[in-house]
């Protein structure tokens, strides 16, 4: 009987390990498209924003894959801030095209979703971390928590719960994706002045 039981347990374990590996592989093969995240070199799709001047952004956006050409428009920026703002609709091939706002500045650019719905192709924090990897630092900024990466990308989302401590969840929606032009981190690592924490996965965070 002991051999019989050991056979069942070992067989179940091996079979399930194969199924888990298979499910992971299948998910990677059939991943649904979301709004593309900026690359670690600061470029978004084929547009390297910091190399462009504001007038070149509008035609460049119209050329981008997924951007509905007729939907791109320049909207009034914030007076005195030197920002240039654009709105466009992005079609990820599923659901309704997503309205996105791009705020551009010579030192930083920011994508934010407009009228986000549950089936929008806008990425969640889980999507972002799956693609970008573990962030360098998790920071509390006002009423938002942000994930800071070694290169340029900054992912922010509204915190929830009665914290502190605050729970991070892969299902959290990203409020904005910004890319900052900045120097590489010094050898000792970047210094964060605001309350922050090292990345410890999707769990509770306390900031100091």
């Amino acid at each position, binding site marked *: *009987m*002991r*051999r*019989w*039981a*050991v*056979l*069942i*347990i070992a067989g*179940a*374990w*091996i079979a*399930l*390990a194969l*199924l*888990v*590996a298979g*499910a*992971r*592989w*299948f*998910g*990677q*093969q*059939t*991943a649904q498209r979301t709004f593309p995240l900026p690359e670690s070199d600061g470029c978004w799709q084929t547009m390297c924003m910091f190399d462009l001047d504001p007038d070149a952004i509008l035609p460049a956006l119209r050329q981008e894959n997924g951007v509905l050409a007729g939907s791109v428009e320049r909207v009034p920026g914030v007076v005195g801030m030197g920002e240039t703002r654009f709105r466009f609709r992005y079609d990820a091939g599923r659901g309704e095209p997503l309205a996105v706002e791009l705020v551009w500045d010579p030192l930083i650019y920011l994508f934010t979703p407009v009228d986000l719905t549950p089936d929008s192709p806008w990425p*969640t924090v*889980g*999507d972002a*971390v*799956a*693609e970008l*990897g*573990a962030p360098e630092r998790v920071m509390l900024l006002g009423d938002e928590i942000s994930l800071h990466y070694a290169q340029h990308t900054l992912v922010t989302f509204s915190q929830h719960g*009665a914290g502190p*401590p605050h*729970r991070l*969840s*892969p*299902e959290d929606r990203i409020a904005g994706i910004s890319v900052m032009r900045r120097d590489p981190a010094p050898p000792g690592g970047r210094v964060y002045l605001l309350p922050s924490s090292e*990345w*410890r*996965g*999707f*769990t*509770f965070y306390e900031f100091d």
Partner: protein
Amino acid sequence: MPRLSLTAQRPSWASLSHPVLRTILQREQQRHTRAARALAAIVGVGMALSVLYFGVDAYRRDMSLGISGQNESPVFSVLYLFLLLMQLFAQLAALLLASSLFASERQREAWELVKITSHGAEFAVWARWAAVMYRLRWLLAAVWMPRLFFTVTMLAGLTDYHGRQLDLAIAGGAPALSIPVAIGLLAALMAATLLQPLVAVALNASAGLAIVALAGSGRLYQLVRGAAMAAQMIGFCAALAAGWIVLNGDPWTPGYATMAMGERWASLLLMAAGGDQGLRLMNLQTAFRAWTDVEYGALIGVALLAVVVGELMLAQGLARWAAYRAGRPGRG
């Protein structure tokens, strides 16, 4: 070359064609009239439907029974309490059935003849163990099928986040895990949670046999059996309560905040082994929360699988001991 098929490995007394098992099952069938069996079935189904209705109603009112409701699917929220009660019922039924079957057999005059037959007492005990599992087969199927569904749901959940759901669960957690190790640990958790309720029922059946072998079939037997059932219920509630504090993950409550990491880990294992038989961990989000919120939480699956193996060995040891003791000369 030895055969490696499961049928070939199955012991003879577990086969329905074995005369001892067949006799026990036939005798059991004759003990109750058809009307009594139908009445018991109606009452059982009625109670099950009531608990299910209670679960649906609570979910509609945004009250999850026994779980936090955070990140749980509607099916899981509705079925959790129902399955929990069914599992407890199956465990208690196994204990009661095994002990009453064996006690009534020992009171029969034929028992002395069975004892002097070669391996007679041993076969009698093992066949009663198999009879209990056979009698509870539909209840076990009802407990097990939803678990199979939850396992499939977990596998489907692994395809989320571009197939990197597992990568997210181990990102930044302690200990640092590679993907192949994480796959093995998650598979161990799934295997353990699938097998745990069946093994727990098997262990209870063995415990029922051992109680009769230890205490005979008189007043002491009634007392020990009652105590065993009470201990099981108390252990069940305590294990559930311990794990509930950890899994419902409310770090603002003093109970959670003052818990050491080792205590959280032990509470999780206690809940999975002695409480809900790992049912809460059959939700991928909950399982991964346990991995990230509790240090070394990823090892819960392997620990639970070790518990399953230990319980199996204990079940076999208890039944063997009961057979040995029942077969000794001079004991009723």
